[in-house]
C-alpha cells in the first residue's frame, strides 16, 4: 500500500491556507459579524499550527499555549459581540461603510 504519510508540512499548509482565508475575509467582507468570523478563523489557524508543531517537536508547550489562546479569544469575542450589538442598537447597522462619523 502506498498510503500517503501526513507530515508536518501538510498541517502547516492547511493552517496557512486557513490564515489567508481568514485574512481575506477580514479585508473583503463588509459585515462586522462576518469580519469577526474571519478573525476567529485566523486565530484557529494559529492553534492548528501550534498543535502540529507541538506534536512533531514532542513538546507540550505549544498545546498549553492553545488553551491560553482559546480562553483569551473567548473573552475577546464576548467583549467584541457586546460592542457590535451596542453599535447596532445605536445605528441599526453592522456594516463597515457606515462607520464613517470619525473622518477628517
Amino acid at each position, binding site marked *: 500500500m502506498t498510503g500517503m504519510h501526513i507530515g508536518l508540512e501538510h498541517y*502547516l499548509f492547511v*493552517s496557512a491556507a486557513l*490564515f489567508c482565508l*481568514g485574512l481575506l475575509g*477580514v479585508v473583503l467582507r463588509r459585515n*462586522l459579524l462576518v*469580519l*469577526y468570523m474571519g*478573525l476567529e478563523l*485566523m*486565530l484557529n*489557524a*494559529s*492553534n492548528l*499550527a*501550534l498543535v502540529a*508543531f*507541538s506534536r512533531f*517537536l514532542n*513538546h507540550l*508547550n*505549544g498545546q*498549553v*499555549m492553545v488553551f*491560553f*489562546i482559546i480562553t*483569551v479569544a473567548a*473573552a*475577546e469575542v464576548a*467583549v*467584541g459581540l457586546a*460592542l*457590535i450589538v*451596542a*453599535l447596532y442598537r*445605536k*445605528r441599526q447597522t453592522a456594516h463597515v461603510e457606515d*462607520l464613517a*462619523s*470619525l*473622518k*477628517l
Partner: protein
Amino acid sequence: MNASLLGPELVIVGLGLALLLLDLMVPPERRRWLGCVAAATVFALCTYFIAQSGRTGEVQTAFGGMYVLDGLAVYFKALFLLAGGVVLLLAVDWTDHAGHAVTEYFVLILFALAGMMLCASAHDFATLYVSLELVTVTFYVLTSYQRDHVASLEAGVKYLILGALSSAFLVYGIALCYGAAGTMSFTELASQSPALAGSKLFQLGMLLVLGGLAFKVALFPFQVWAPDVYEGSPAPTTAFLAVGSKAAGLVLMVRLFGSVLPDLTLKWEPLLMVISGVSILYGSLCAIPQRSLKRLMGYSSIANGGLLMMGLAAASKAGSAAILFYLAGYLFTVVCAFVVASVVVQRLGTDDLTALAGLHRRSPMLAASLTLSMVSLAGVPPLAGFFGKFVLIRALVEQGASFPGWYVLIAVALAGVVISFSYYFRVIKAIYWSGETAEAPPLVLSPLVQAALVLCLAGMLALGILPSFVWEAAVAAVAGLRL
C-alpha cells in the same frame, strides 16, 4: 520559583476586585472616593518602584523564568504606575462630569495597568500574549465606554477589529517562532539567538510578532486606527492609550530585540529604520490639516512612535536608554495635553481647535499647560521633549559611522520635527491669536485636575532642566541588554 515578585500586580488586581465589591455598598455620590483611593494606591506603588530602581543589578525570575524582574521591568513599571495614577485622577474628574461616578471605569483602568505591568515582566511568549491581550481587551471596553455616543462606540469597534487582527498576526507569529525554535521561553530563545537569526521560518514568525507589537505602538503599517480611536474615545482612555499602551508595546520590543534576539536586530536594522522613517513622515504630514485636538494628537502619536522606533533601530544600549528617557518625558507631556482636552471637551462640548480661542482668558492654567505641552512635544528647550529628541538623535549619530543610511534617518527625523512645529504651534495660535472672541465665562478647574496638571508640568520641567536623574535610571535599566 518566587511568586512574591508578582506582589505589585496582585495588589493592583486585588484593588480592582475590591473596588467592584465596594461599589455595591458605597452610595453613588461617594463613589468618586473609590477612584481617589485607587489613584493614591497606584501612586504609593509607583514611589516604591522609583525607590527600587536604584538597585537594578540583580535579575529575579519567577514561574520557571516566564516572569522576570530586572532593571528594565522596574523602570517600566514605575512609568506605567505613574501614568495610571494621573489617568485615574483625570478619570475621577471625567466621571464627575459624565453625571455619576462609575466605578467600573476606574476598575478597567486598574486591570489595563496590571496587564501593562505584566508586559514589562513577560519573559515567555505565553506571558507576552496573555498580558498584551489583557491590555487590549480592557481597552476595547475603555474606548467604547460612552455607550450613548456614536463616536465612542465607533472608536471601540474600529479598535476591536484592528486590535483583533493584530493579535491574530501576533499569535500566528508566535506559532511559527515556536515551530522554528522549539521553545517559547525567552531564556532559551536567547541562547539560540545567532542560529535563529538565520532561520527563514523564525524570521517570518518574528515579522508577524513585530506587526502585532507595532499595532500597540501605532507604527506604520499598523497605524490606521490611531486618529479615529484617539478622537472618539473618552479623554482619560485616550491619555492612557497614548502613554500606557504605547509603552507596553515598546517594552516588549526592547526586551525581544534588545535582550533576547540581538542578532536578529542587527540583521533587521534596515527594516526597523524604514518603519521608523515612514511613521515619522506619515504622522507629521497627516497632522497638518487636522481640526480636532484629539485627532491631531493621534497623528502626533504615530510620529512619536516613529521617533521612539529610531532608538530601537539604532541597535545600541544608548538607543534603548533614549527610548526609556523619551517615554518618561512623553508621559508627562501627552497626559498634560489630554487633561486639557478632557476639560475642554466636557465644558465646551467639542475639541475643535476653534473652541480653544481665548482659552488664556477663561483659564490661564489650562492655556499655559497646553502651551507648554505643545512646546515640549515640538522639542523646544528647556522642556522634556527637547532632551528626549536630543538623546535619540545622538544615539543615531553614534551609529552613523558604520552605515550612511543612518544619516538619511536623522534627516527624516529632523524633517519630521520641523513639520511638527507647524501643527503644534497652530494649537498655540488657536489659543492666543484667533481673533475676537465673545465674552465667555471662566472655566473653574477641580482640585484633581489642578493636581494632575501641576504633576505633569513639574515632570516636564524637571526632565528638561535636570534630566540626569532619569537619564541615569534609564541607562542603568538597559545595562542588562545584549546589544
